[in-house]
Structures are given as C-alpha cells and as structure tokens.
C-alpha cells in the first residue's frame, strides 16, 4: 500500500499544480497569455460541461452568454466607470439571468430543437451587439479596461483566472459527485425513467443551466480583460462550436476529458500558423472523427489506458470460507 498522498489522486494533483505554475515560472509572456486563455475558456467549459456532458442537452450557443459577460465589463467599467472587480461579479449575475431567461422556454424542447434555439441565441446576441451602436460601439467594438492593483499585470491576471477556474471546478466537481450529478446523468440517459423515480427534471435542468450561464458570464468578463478589446466578430458562432467540440471530444460524464480537450484544442492553432488559418475546419474535422470513431471521447480512452497500465488494486473476489466463524454464528442464533 502506498501513502495516500502519493496515490493516483495525489500524483494527479501534483502534476496539475506543476502545470499551472509552469507558465508563471517560465517568464514567457506569450505562454502566459495562452495559458490565461485556456483558463478563461475552461471557466466557461466547466459550466457547459454540466449541461452537455452530464445532462446531455446540446447547447451550442453559450458564446452568446460569453459575449454578454465580456460586454458587461466593457460597458460597466469602461463606459460607466465601475470597478472591474465589481463588473466581473455583475457579468456573472447577468450571464446567469440571461441563462435563466433562455432556459425557461428552451429547456422543455427536445434535442434538436434545443440545439437550434441556442444556435439562435448566439446569432441574436451578435445581431444586438451590432445593432445597438450607441451602447456597444457596433461593429467597431469597445476597449475593456484591465483590473486594478496587483491584478493588472499579466501574471496577476493569470493567477486570478486560475483561482476562479479552480473554485468553479471544485463547485462543479462537487455537483457531479453528489445527488445532483446522479440526477443529471439520469436525465441524460433516460428522462422518462428519471421522472418516474422522482427527479424534478425541469428544475434540475434550469438550475444547472443558470449556473452555466453564470460561469459563461464570468468567463466572458475574464476574456474581455485578457483581450482588452472586444468586437462582435470575436463572438462568432464558431467560438460557441469550439466550446462545444472541446466537451464532445473530451467525453460525456467526465471533467478531466473536457479539460484535456480544451487544452489541446486551444494550443492547436497556436502551435503553427498554418493551423491557425484552417483552425475551425480542423475543429470540425476532429469532431467528426471523434463522433464516428470514439463516441465516448478521449476520457474513455484515458480511462482504458489507466486501467490497463496503472490498475486499481482490486479487492480479492474469492474469500476463504471461515468455518469457525460460521460455526459460532450457527451456534448462537439471534446474537
């Protein structure tokens, strides 16, 4: 038996800690930016993962809520002079509110209808951003002020992103482990069976959709601060598809899988300039391959690999018959 700290979980946590600190210690500004970007996307994707990966509701339009978060910071602190930290919180609340308003009618709809409604949301947000020229700056966009104090530096912002991501990861990990997680998976696998055993499907869906709206709003605010300028072009439908693809290739019902998906897909266009040109084409190709070949995503491959090369110590399945214990049990019935 190894010490619990050096077991599988301990090793995983240590590896994650090293990976998180690496961009900070390397001193490479570009690496830090990319790492912050991954963290920002991850904040949104955790929330979306609950909806897509655990609950099986195919939302492709979270980029709309993401845009709302980014524009909240741009307008709130850039135009009206609120403190960016306050704007961050408001962005989350506004994202949650919009998620709630969208969720009330759309979550009742079956699969394809729901996907089309969320697609519609992302197009609507794009339309409004261009149309409301006086508020959002139209197609030209708006500058976003950075955070103040120690958070103004790139490494400060990175630490903030990591902190928020870690906090929301913890929350959603707890959600998936406990009663809520079971309810979500039951809704995904059979909504009729879920209703029959008394899972309040509508309420669970709406609550988690609102939560995912919150994370999308916060992620949008962080994204705005990171990019320091937002235009409607940034929040194209393709970005929403990107979030969605990260989760699908990661695999349903997993947190580690979508995390790996986010890291890999964000890094992919950064590795080479020729990848950047065909970026979205590549994403679509990856999605098609994953859906056709490994429909359960890379997390299933990962799980298989871990079980293969690093098996959990199985409890012995055969037990020797303990004759004296049996005899004593038979001798004194009722004790």
């Amino acid at each position, binding site marked *: 038996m190894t010490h619990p700290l050096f077991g599988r979980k301990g090793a995983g946590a240590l590896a994650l800690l090293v990976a998180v600190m690496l961009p900070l210690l390397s001193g490479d500004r570009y690496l830090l930016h990319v790492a912050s970007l991954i963290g920002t996307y991850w904040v949104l994707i955790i929330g979306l993962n609950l909806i897509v990966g655990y609950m*099986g509701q*195919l939302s*492709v339009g979270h980029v709309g809520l993401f845009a709302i978060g980014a524009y909240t910071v741009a307008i709130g602190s850039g135009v009206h002079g609120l403190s960016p930290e306050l704007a961050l919180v408001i962005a989350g609340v506004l994202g949650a509110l919009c998620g709630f308003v969208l969720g009330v*009618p759309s979550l009742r*709809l079956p*699969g*394809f*209808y729901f*996907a*089309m*409604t969320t*697609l*519609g*949301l992302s*197009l*609507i947000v794009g*339309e*409004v951003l*261009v*149309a409301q020229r006086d508020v959002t700056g139209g197609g030209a966009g708006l500058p976003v002020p950075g955070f103040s104090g120690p958070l103004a530096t790139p490494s400060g912002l990175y630490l903030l992103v990591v902190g928020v991501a870690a906090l929301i990861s913890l929350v959603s990990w707890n959600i998936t482990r406990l009663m809520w997680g079971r309810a979500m998976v039951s809704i995904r696998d059979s909504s*009729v069976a879920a209703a029959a055993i008394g899972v309040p499907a509508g309420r669970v869906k709406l609550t988690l959709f609102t939560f995912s709206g919150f994370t999308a709003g916060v992620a949008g605010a962080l994204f705005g601060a990171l990019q320091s300028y937002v235009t409607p072009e940034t929040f194209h*439908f*393709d970005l929403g*598809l990107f979030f969605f693809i990260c989760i*699908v290739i990661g695999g349903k019902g997993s947190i580690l899988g979508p995390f790996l998906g986010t890291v890999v897909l964000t890094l992919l266009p950064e590795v080479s300039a020729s990848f950047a*040109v*065909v970026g*979205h*084409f590549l*994403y*679509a*190709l990856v*999605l*098609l391959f994953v*859906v*056709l070949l490994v*429909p359960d995503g890379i997390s299933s491959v990962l799980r298989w690999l871990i079980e293969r090369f690093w098996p959990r110590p199985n409890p012995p399945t055969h037990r020797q018959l303990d004759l004296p214990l049996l005899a004593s049990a038979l001798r004194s019935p009722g004790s």
Partner: protein
Amino acid sequence: MLTVIITGLAIGSLYAAAALVYNLMYSSSKVLSVTTGHICMLGGVCGAYFIGVLKWPIIAGLLLSVAIGMIVGLLTEIVAVRRIVARSSDHLWILSTLAFGSIIQQTTLLAWGTEPRPFPRLIPQDYSAGMWDQKFWLPIVCTLGLAAAIHLFMHRTMYGKLFSAMSQDEFAARARGVPTERIRAASYAAAGGLGSIAGFAAGQLTYAYFAVGLMLTLNGFIALAVGGIGSNVGALVGGALLGVFTALASYYFGGEYQQTMCLGLLMLILLIKPSGLFGTREARPV
C-alpha cells in the same frame, strides 16, 4: 408595402426549400441534418463561381451545381448518417451532421472568401423592374416547382411509394423487401440536388456568401417546425409565413433584429401548437 410582402415571400420560399430538403432527409432516416442550409448555400456559391467567374453557359453551371449538391448530399449520408443511424444512439447524428456541415462551411470560406459576392443574372432583364425583378420571382417559382415535383414523385411513381413506405415504417418496409439502405442514400442525394437548385435560384437574392448556410439551416428548421415536421405543405406554408413575418417586422421595427424575430415566431408556435401547424402528434415515448 407590396414590395415588402414580395421580398418576404421570396426569402420565405428559400426557407421553404430548405424545409423541403430537411423533410426529404427526415422521411428516410429520421435525421434532421444540419448540413441542409450549407448544401443550399453551395448551390449559390457554385453557380456564382461557374457562371460569374468561369463564364460558363448558364445551363452547364446549373447542372454542375446540382451535381455537386447531390454529391455533398450523398456524402452527408455516407459520412455522417449511415453509421450513426445503424448504431441508433441518442442524438449522435446532431453532432456528426453539425461537424460535417461545419466542414462544408469552412471549406467554402477558405476557397471562396469571407465576403458576399454577386450572383450573375440568369435571364436578361434590366434592373428597373422593381418588385417584378427575377431575383424575387425566381426562387418562388423554383420552390413551388420543387414542391410539385416532390408531390408527383411521391404519389405517382413506384419509387415514390417505396419512399413513403419507408418513411412510415422502416422495419416493415424492410420486411417487405424494400432496399431501405439504397433508398436512404437516394433520398439524401435527391435532397442535395433540390437544395442546390433552390440555392442557385435564390443566388441573386442572397448573394454567394458562406454565412447563408448557417442562416438557412436555422431558418429552414424554424419554417419546418412552424409548419410541422414531415409535412411538405407545412414546409411551404411555414416558409412563406416566416419570410413575410420577418419582412413585415423588419419593415416596422428595422432590419437589425431578423434572427430575433425568427426565433420569437418559433417560440410562439411551439407554445401554441408544439407539433406545428400541419404536423401530426407523435406518441409520447414511455
């Protein structure tokens, strides 16, 4: 005012054509393919390329555009539908057709460019005709023609009968010796061809523009949901309704909120009559 309604009918007929394509694919596979709008878009882009850029005769451009549409429709079936339907998994087809549609869109974007480009004139006519311009009546006539052709095919020919047998009960049709696999492939190829014709005819209205695909995927679906999935009459009525509704709405409230209006109409219809205007109620899966 009449101009507004004509514009609405013209764009609505394109939505209706997309809805017909959805229907044709749905009838043989129970799949609502996200590639629908992209195939229609390809018709317009290919037409503009062959006739506008390469200066081919119109008929050659049309035939090749239709052929490309049919090939892409067939590819949709082979790549994104066949294996998924055989596996009969939950809504996996949304993902596969979404991925394939995205591939079509990105390929068009890389090959054709991000800007909308004009579609050449098909019939010699000067631009002073106003509301009788060919860009309005061409898509309307084309969609009505396509709907009539589908109707005749379904009701008057042997293959049409096989089609409807399969759409009513695939298992029973198979038991009676209907080659369901081949019919599904044929329906996707036909749907691709139809979509391509519709996109070609409406090219002067929409321009040859890659983003038309996603817009048609969404609005064609809304037209279909408003009219009722599975009903061709519903597709026509739904498309016309959606087109006129958005045209009137943008006439009164400004043109920036078209997508908002479309989605609003969808929500309204789903609230009042979830199965659509001409749809049949499906049994609840218990």
